[in-house]
Each structure stands twice: as structure tokens, then as C-alpha cells.
């Protein structure tokens, strides 16, 4: 690699790479632009490889070759699949997006560039940042393959609610280089910029290796208080963010249902015990807990539920240390046992009147003992719980049938989470527990004027946990609406709470005019993103007829807003020698048993003018 980052051996030079992220009201619009020139005397294959968050939807991809831009089109997956099949039949590999580790997906395309020619790759993706343990995170994975003459990351954040703090984390940077990251923060705007020179990118003065290899993470939070939150209105769509502060936590009753079957033996069992010990230590003394362990049989620690007093916690820890792995996996019986235990404890008035009851299941495998039909187990658990308790399922490792756990959680107002087999597994378990550790509100209902709005996203929530955020969006159907009233009804630990926000449509639109410099239609796109995400979740536990309707609606929105979702694919067509060659992108499914190391995907190199290329992006 020469002075300007040119690699004389490959002949390819990335002379510019720009990552531009614009966030307005938590909705992030990201563009990655990379420019490559072939300085060799022959055609070369240039790869464009980007990792993006799994929660993001790709919205656009384009390549500009010889001054001609080839733009991606989002199509129904089946349509794209036909092209995919054609490509496969030609002996090519397709599928451009692959899961990469825990949080990221890898998008990869390649194209042949003629001698002295240039190519510009441009990828756009969008994402609604989720508040997690009191902050939003923008994760940008930085990994250029060579030194880049013009490398730049620019993150602009605009939060009308006010930015409480803005930090960045770039562990790959040596200490002496962290100062090149520039951060500016005003009341409502934040800007983080990273623009290392070629010299600053070098690992050592005379070598060509780059230090740019790692995650560039931006963390921030907005100002919040105990109010109905903030409502933004732009171009006829509104979004309401609600995350009240200064509330007292509500006690919770947790039944830990822990798999200690034979497959858990070794590291997984040790890590589970370690995490449980820490979780027990962190329990609030007002909480109640019980532990059920299962293999092909199940056992409840001391056959009851206990308040998390120091004595009870100490005794439970002694028990946890004795849990060892053995036997098969019967998930049905311990789950039903957990429900019965909660039922009885409520009936006997052992638990606080206003409290959250939840079951946290941790398992590493499919049920293979007792009732082993996953559908039957899901039905049994749903019917026993009957909407009263939350179920959170933690799938440990890669042998779990994640879709089974996901449906069981979603059926019972919970979520499923994959716990990756790694040295930090105990931290992952604790991290999940921390998310649900502090319920602040129960039965939250957000109301808006019925006749004035339509297409509302989910507006009723069983709980609100400290550190998270409730987001509701909708369309204003009354063109003459002067003010929008949002009312929140909820229960706190002791009282009934009502919060009200009234926003003047004209005033809010005036304020949002200021943010048009970011992107004007963000509220509508945010609404579409949120609607699709929620419909996808709903689809997991829907019956056949409803599933069909949900699928149609997701597809309609994905196509309309050009989102690469599990139901759509993006096809980039590149005319070549009078043929239409396509690239297609898909989104990988969480249920794919993807090892932590990303699968290696190779796209065979081919002569520039002879073989058609085909690429493909989409999302599961």
C-alpha cells in the first residue's frame, strides 16, 4: 500500500469511505459510501463488505460503475427468489447478507472493475434505536481492508427533547488517537466526527496495517421526567416517545425455571450458576422469587416462593451452587409448575397486590422428555397463564429451537433472547435480567383522539421497565386537527397515574421544520419501521388466517417504504453485454443456527465481461 493507501499488488485502492449517520428522534438513517479505483492494467474484483445492526432494515444500495448508477429495487421475496434460483442454476452463490455475531449482519457484494475504472458503492439502512438500560446505542463496525485516504464517520443527532449525554466508545483506537474523535453537543444536537489521516490509520510508522478494526459505538440518552413524553408530528404522521423518570419500582415475583439437563454440563452449567448467584445478589428485597430446576423431572427449591430477604437469598445461593447437569429435557412440566406456583402464591396472598409476576426460562435444547411437541407445550403454557404472567425465554447456545422459545415468549407478553456460548455468557444473562429487573408501571394505555388518527402502532403495554422506552406512532387522519392530545393511563406501585400531553400541530410542525436538515419524512418512515417490526412479532404467534393478513400488510409496507425485511429482497440489476444481471440481498433469520464466527461466504471471481453477476440482500 503506497502513500495514498494504494495496494500495488492488488491494484485496487479505496480512496474514500464515508459513513454518515443522521438520527432524529431515535430514528437513524445511515449511509455508507465507498469509492474504489482499479489502478491495475487488468480487471479486478472489488468487494464491498459492511456489517450493519440486525435490527436495521436496508433501504437502498447502489453501485456506480463508469458513471452509470445501478440502483437496488426492493421486491417481494418470491420474485427475487426466482432470480436467485436462476443465479444458483448458473453455479453462482447468492444471498448477500449473513448473520455476523450477536448483533450484526454482514452485507457483501463484489464487482469486477476494468483497468483504471472506478466504482462507488452506496448502502443505506435505517433503524429505530431502542432504549436499552437507559441509553441508545449506534454501532458502526469499522473494518476497511486497507488504509483509506479519505476515511470519515459523521454522526449527527437531533433530539428535540434535549440530549442528556453523548459519549463514544472506540476501543480499537490507541489512547493517543482518541482525541481525533471530535464531539460537540448543544442542548438538542450532538455531532461525533472521526476523520483519521492516513498516518493516523497506520498501526506502525512503516507498515500498511490499519488500526481501524473494531466497533465505533455512540451512546446517548435524552432528557426525561415524569410526563406523558414527547410527541412529534411531521407531514401527517406522529410519534410519541414515553419513558417517564422518577417513579418508584414495582415489586416483582420471578420464577426462574432452569434447565440442568445433560447438555448443560460443563461451561454452560457453571456459567448459569454464576449468573444466577449474581442475579440473586442483585434482587431487591421487596421482590419474591422461586427456583425450579428441570431435566426430565423437575424440582422446586423448598417448594415455595420466597421474599428476597438476605437470609432467603443466602439459602438460595447455597442451593444454586449444588445444581449440576444430568438427564433429558422436559420443558412442559416445569413451566406448568411455575404457573401453578404463582397461582397459588397469589391466591394465598403471599405476593404484593401490585406486582409483576414473571417466569424466566433458561434452556439450551429442545424438549425431548415428557410432552415434547413444541406446539403442544406452547398451547399448554399459554392456556395456563391466560394473560396473567410474562414469560421470558433465554435460549442458551446454538442447539435451541429459537422459534419455539420466541413464540412461547411472545404468546405470553415476554421476549426471547439468545444467550451466546462465550466467556461472557453470565454477563449476557445478568444483562437480560437487568432489563426486566425494575418494573415502573403496569397496564400502560396510551390514548389519542380516536376520530383524528389511524394506523396506530401498539398502544397498550403490560409493563414499562426502567431504562426502556415506549414508542407509539400513527397517522393523523383529520386534516384540520389543531392539537393532538396524548393521554397515558397506568398504574404505579401504589397509585393510578394519568399523564397528558397536548401538542399544537402547527407549533410542533414548526419545530420539526428545523430538523428537516436531517431528513424530512422521518416520522412516516419511523412509523412504517415500527409497524413492520410489530407485525413481524405478531406474525410469530398468529393463526393461519391472521398470519396471511399480517404477511400481506408487512409486504405492502416493506415494498412501499423500500425496506429489506424478511418478506422482501433487494435486487440490483447491472446490464452487461445486453443481459440483465442481478444482485439480490436477503436478511438472515435468527433461527438459523449461526455459529458465532460468521460463515465464510465467497463470491467467485469472474471476468468482467463474460459472466453475469447476481447479488441479493434481504432480512429475516
Amino acid at each position, binding site marked *: 500500500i503506497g502513500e495514498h493507501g494504494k495496494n500495488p499488488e492488488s491494484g485496487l485502492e479505496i480512496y474514500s469511505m464515508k459513513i454518515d449517520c443522521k438520527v432524529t428522534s431515535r430514528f437513524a438513517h445511515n449511509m455508507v459510501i465507498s469509492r474504489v479505483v482499479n489502478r491495475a492494467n487488468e480487471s479486478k474484483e472489488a468487494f464491498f463488505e459492511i456489517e450493519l445492526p440486525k435490527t436495521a432494515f436496508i433501504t437502498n444500495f447502489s453501485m456506480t460503475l463508469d458513471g452509470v448508477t445501478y440502483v437496488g429495487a426492493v421486491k417481494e421475496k418470491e420474485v427475487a427468489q426466482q432470480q436467485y434460483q436462476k443465479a444458483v442454476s448458473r453455479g453462482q452463490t447468492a444471498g448477500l447478507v449473513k448473520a455476523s455475531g450477536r448483533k450484526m449482519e454482514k452485507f457483501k457484494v463484489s464487482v469486477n472493475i476494468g483497468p483504471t475504472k472506478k466504482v462507488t458503492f452506496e448502502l443505506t439502512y435505517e433503524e429505530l434505536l431502542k432504549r436499552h438500560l437507559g441509553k441508545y446505542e449506534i454501532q458502526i463496525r469499522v473494518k476497511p481492508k486497507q488504509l483509506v485516504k479519505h476515511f470519515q464517520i459523521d454522526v449527527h443527532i437531533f433530539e428535540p427533547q434535549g440530549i442528556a449525554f453523548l459519549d463514544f466508545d472506540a476501543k480499537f483506537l490507541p489512547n493517543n488517537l482518541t482525541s481525533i474523535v471530535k464531539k460537540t453537543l448543544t442542548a438538542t444536537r450532538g455531532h461525533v466526527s472521526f476523520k483519521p489521516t492516513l498516518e493516523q490509520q497506520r498501526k506502525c510508522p512503516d507498515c500498511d496495517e490499519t488500526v481501524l478494526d473494531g466497533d465505533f459505538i455512540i451512546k446517548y440518552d435524552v432528557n426525561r421526567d415524569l410526563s406523558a413524553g414527547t410527541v412529534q408530528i411531521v407531514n401527517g404522521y406522529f410519534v410519541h416517545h414515553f419513558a417517564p423518570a422518577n417513579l*418508584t419500582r414495582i415489586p416483582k415475583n420471578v420464577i426462574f425455571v432452569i434447565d440442568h439437563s445433560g447438555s448443560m454440563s460443563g461451561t454452560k452449567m457453571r456459567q448459569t450458576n454464576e449468573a444466577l448467584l449474581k442475579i440473586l445478589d442483585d434482587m431487591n428485597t421487596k421482590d419474591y422469587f422461586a427456583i425450579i430446576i428441570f431435566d426430565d423431572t423437575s424440582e422446586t427449591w423448598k417448594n415455595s416462593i420466597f421474599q428476597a430477604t438476605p437470609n432467603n437469598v443466602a439459602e438460595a445461593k447455597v442451593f444454586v451452587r449444588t445444581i449440576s447437569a444430568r438427564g433429558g429435557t422436559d420443558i412442559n412440566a416445569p413451566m406448568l409448575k411455575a404457573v401453578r406456583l404463582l397461582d397459588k402464591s397469589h391466591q394465598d396472598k403471599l405476593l404484593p397486590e401490585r406486582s409483576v409476576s414473571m417466569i424466566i426460562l433458561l434452556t439450551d435444547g429442545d424438549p425431548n422428555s415428557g410432552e415434547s411437541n413444541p406446539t403442544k407445550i406452547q398451547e399448554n403454557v399459554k392456556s395456563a397463564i391466560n394473560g396473567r404472567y410474562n414469560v421470558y425465554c433465554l435460549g442458551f447456545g446454538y442447539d435451541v429451537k429459537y422459534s419455539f422459545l420466541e413464540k412461547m415468549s411472545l404468546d405470553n407478553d415476554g421476549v426471547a433472547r439468545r444467550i451466546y456460548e462465550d466467556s461472557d455468557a453470565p454477563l449476557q444473562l445478568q444483562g437480560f435480567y437487568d432489563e426486566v429487573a425494575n418494573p415502573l408501571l403496569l397496564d400502560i394505555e396510551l390514548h389519542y383522539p380516536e376520530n383524528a388518527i389511524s394506523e396506530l402502532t401498539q398502544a397498550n403495554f403490560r409493563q414499562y421497565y426502567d431504562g426502556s422506552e415506549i414508542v407509539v406512532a400513527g397517522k393523523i387522519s383529520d386534516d384540520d386537527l389543531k392539537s393532538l392530545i396524548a393521554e397515558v393511563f397506568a398504574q404505579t406501585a401504589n397509585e393510578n397515574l394519568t399523564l397528558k400531553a397536548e401538542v399544537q400541530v402547527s407549533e410542533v410542525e414548526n419545530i420539526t421544520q428545523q430538523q428537516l436538515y436531517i431528513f424530512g419524512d422521518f416520522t412516516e418512515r419511523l412509523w412504517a419501521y415500527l409497524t413492520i417490526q410489530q407485525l413481524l412479532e405478531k406474525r410469530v404467534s398468529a393463526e393461519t388466517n391472521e398470519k396471511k393478513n399480517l404477511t400481506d400488510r408487512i409486504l405492502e409496507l416493506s415494498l412501499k417504504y423500500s425496506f429489506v425485511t424478511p418478506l422482501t429482497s433487494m435486487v440490483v440489476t447491472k446490464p452487461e453485454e445486453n443481459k440483465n444481471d442481478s444482485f439480490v440481498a436477503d436478511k438472515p433469520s435468527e433461527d438459523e443456527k449461526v455459529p458465532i464466527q460468521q460463515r465464510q461466504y465467497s463470491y467467485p471471481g469472474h471476468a468482467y465481461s463474460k459472466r453475469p453477476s447476481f447479488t441479493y440482500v434481504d432480512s429475516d
Partner: protein
Amino acid sequence: PHFVISINDHSDAICFNIDGKPGAILNLVTDPYTDFVVNGELIGEKKIEINKKINTYFGKFGIVNNKMDVKVEVSTKTITVFHGEDKIVFPWSATASLTKESFSISIIKERNLTLTMGDDATFVIVLHRVWKNHPLHRDFLGFYTLDSHRFSSMTHGLLGQFYHEISAEIYNIHPGLDEGKSDATMIVKGHKLRVTRGYQKDYRFDPKRGTNVPCWFVHYNGKGFIDGSPTDYVVSSLF
């Protein structure tokens, strides 16, 4: 702060000022029978000039109902509700309400809050917002008693002592020392006092301009009208 007390079956009103030092906490209501207390903390202007009279206002109220295990602290910034060990903090920027059986608090953003404690008491606290760059004035609060009929006859405090109707006789109305203002003689609580006709404002319905309440002004910190002297009402803490 200014105090306005209705008399003679709401047909007239008496008003007086209490001058205190910024930081002092005054007891407004104490009912030992219902275990109910309201205290108010005084604030001064942003700048205090030497040898000039210090104007004080209420900057914070503490309301305690021990029977309900409820305490409410209202400042010009936030409203904090303590219920047992629980604590909830509302900003003045939000419209909100909190209810629990017979206790309720209802906030109208940037304007006022209404506090109802069972059948015993209903109060309104009005927020007076002042331009934040004003060189002298700062935000302050007003306290209004809407309903106190269930308080016991032992209720006391700068306001509480008037919760049970008092009668005052006003006569000898004549031109006063201040031009354009009438003076009169008032007989109340066995004292004969010189009072001056004036008016004070009720800001409950019009927080900006207020509505005029004509009243007879009692000079010298309500001397003779209130029991004892203002220093008798100074307490050590808001709760």
C-alpha cells in the same frame, strides 16, 4: 407573602403580609387530630439590597398527611409525592394526575395543582412563573384552601386558625392615611385594629393577571388578627 382570609361568611376578606427571612419555614396548617400539616418555605428576590425591605414569597410547600402516609413537597421546579417508602417526582412541565383511593393530586402543566386528601381537604397550589432572566424576581407559589370543613377545631397555623369561620366587625370607615384608601376599625378576636381598604389577587383562574379580591388590610404582620406573632409559626423543617 400576602395572606387573604375570607370573613363573615365569605362576604368580605381580611388580608395581611408576613415578612420573614428567606429560608424560613412557616407553619400554615396543623391539625393534630387528623395529623395533617402544611408548611411553607420562604424565598427572597435574586438580589437583596442592604437596608431595603426584603420581599419574600413561598418557594416550597410541604404537606403531610400521616394517617394516609402521604407527604407532598411542591417546589417551583417539581412536585414530589412520598407514599410510604415510594417517591414519585413530577415536573411542572407535565399535565398529570395520581390517584389512590381517597388521595389524589392533579397537575395542570405550568399552572397549578389540586390536592385532595379524602373528605378532609382540598387545596390548590398555583405556580407563578417569572421571566427566568428577570434581574430580581424568581418563580414562586401560591396556596389556596378550597375545602377544610373536616378539619378539627384544634387546627392551627397561619391559615389553619381561620379554617373555622371567624367574625369580624368593621366600622368607622373613613379616609385613610394613604390617599384614596379608606381606613376602618375592625374588632376581631377581642382586639380593636386599624385596617386599610385595599385588594389582593386570586390567581386560580387567571394565573397571569389574577382577579381582584377587595380586603381589609391588617398592618404590622397581621398583628392582632393572627394568634401570637409570626415568629411563633416558624418551624425547623418542611415536614
